[in-house]
């Protein structure tokens, strides 16, 4: 379990997030939602030790995150940033990068590493394109390759910063299905999402932020019913049943 206590953090000593107290339960999907600039990414960066907090502490199973050596931490926590440099390498090689925290001084992947990479490629359904260069792939395919790399990293906790942004609707839904697969494998997933319907319909918990603080952190239904989403985003919302489906979808529109 990863826990953030009394966190305030920001850039150049200016606070972006403050009074953050939150714990992410094992084997769940949490979506962090909120307006642009409210501190969602900063929260993820602090939780994954990419940004040192101005005050407060982040612990993993009771251990202070900053005291964990970087490679050991990389075997526990993975972070997939939204904006990435696209390297000029094959799918297989990129997924193999996920094994970096496990490689010894020679940096030579062992049989076990190769097996894990193969399995990650298989789970993400990338077998047919594993020899292709990342540059040749579509946005959706690339995202799946990065998720395969994260899977190969074999961490219990995965932070994803806007994993569906810039993707067409088909790929968005496909990526969300992939994320559910990760949960089935026992991973704890915390992701920033802009699409409120996706956040509410595919998460176990939703964390709504505003102006650097957590407004509500609860189950999707409770967050929806609290009316806080409508207040903060200045929208109206309703739940719409889908024919032949058990779950309802969430619709948002301007007042």
């Amino acid at each position: 379990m990863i826990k953030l206590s009394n966190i305030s953090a920001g850039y150049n000593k200016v606070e972006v997030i403050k009074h953050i107290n939150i714990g992410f339960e094992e084997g769940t999907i949490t979506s962090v939602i909120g307006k642009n600039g409210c501190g969602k990414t900063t929260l993820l960066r602090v939780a994954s030790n990419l940004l040192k907090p101005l005050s407060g502490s982040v612990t993993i199973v009771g251990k202070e995150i900053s005291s964990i050596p970087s490679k050991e931490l990389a075997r526990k926590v993975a972070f997939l940033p939204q904006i990435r440099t696209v390297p000029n390498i094959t799918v297989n090689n990129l997924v193999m990068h996920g094994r970096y925290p496990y490689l010894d001084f020679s940096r030579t992947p062992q049989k076990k590493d190769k097996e894990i990479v193969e399995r990650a490629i298989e789970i993400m359904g990338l077998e047919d394109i594993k020899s292709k260069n990342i540059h040749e792939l579509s946005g959706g395919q690339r995202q799946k390759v990065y998720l395969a790399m994260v899977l190969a990293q074999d961490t219990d906790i995965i932070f994803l910063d806007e994993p569906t942004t810039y993707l067409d609707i088909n790929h968005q839904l496909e990526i969300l299905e992939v994320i559910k697969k990760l949960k089935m494998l026992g991973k704890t997933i915390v992701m920033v999402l802009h699409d409120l319907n996706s956040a509410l319909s595919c998460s176990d918990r939703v964390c709504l932020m505003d102006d650097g603080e957590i407004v509500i952190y609860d189950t999707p239904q409770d967050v929806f019913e609290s009316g806080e989403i409508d207040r903060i985003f200045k929208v109206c919302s309703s739940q719409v049943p889908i024919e032949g489906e058990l779950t309802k979808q969430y619709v948002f529109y301007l007042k």
Partner: protein
Amino acid sequence: MSMLRKFSTRINLNKNSKSYNATVIALLVLLLLFGVFLSISIGSTRISLSEIIRAMQQGDNTSTTYRIISYVRIPRTLAAVLAGCALSVSGAILQSVLNNSLASPSIIGVNSGAGLFTVLIAAFFPVGVYYTTIAAFVGALLAVLLVYSIAKKTGASRMAIVLSGVAVSSFIGAMTDTVLTLKPDVAIERTAFLIGGFSGITMGRLSFAGGFIVFAFVIALILSYDMNILALGDESAKSLGLNVTSLRFIFLILAAMLAGSAISFAGLLGFVGLIVPHVSRILVGYDNRILIPVSALLGSIFTLLCDLLARVLFAPFEIPVGIIMSFLGGPFFIYLLIKGRRGLLYD
């Protein structure tokens, strides 16, 4: 290169497969050995292979052939090989670590730092060539440390390093020009340094710089996989457990050691550091584990070839190798750009 492609197609090698990479390395090693032989053999006096072997076996210091080989040809050949290898590997490291197609040793202040110290020592402590070599090396390293410490204050991002490099180079350039204005008699040494070349190289001058080049090259090879991880971008690399800031600093120092050492005995042959890594990337792709050795071999071969041409084209007159490099390398690079081979440049 097209021959290599045809050859690889004929023997059915997939690009980037282990056997393809091994074939490329083997062919380049053969080419380098041939280049070394030509460089020792050709000159004002032609020496055949059998004569070379005989002279070296006898080791007779009174024999003219032996003296030419050991005191002129071998130091010169070794200088070209070392300089080509060092500058190319330095360029490959910088282009990868800074993710910038235009990165070459000059971008992190190596040239300007070495240039200033060469001029300073010529102007105020005219103590001899050996010390000029050390001064150029120290100047290059100091300039890079200055560039990095300024960039670090703004987070040491790739862009901060490039911009800080431009600013520091400009400032140091102004200092060099001031010294040249006040002491115009050192301008000749300045010109020789700017053009670069290998005439008059001795083993004594090489040994100091050569040690640094071999050391930095080995470390670069060891860290080549980490360089691949760094290419994923800062946050992804950090998330994989890489200490991005210190590793980038190590790579900058390695690049500065390589280029500074080469510049210290060969003058400014910067162009090789820009184009060879690009050509190597077309051959073997972006994996630094293979790119670094291929850049080293290709850089050595290209520099040897240029030096050979510099010696024989207008014999008995010799033209500085830097001029040949730019005459050959410039149009070739333009040809590659126009042909627009995919993967030539970073996006």
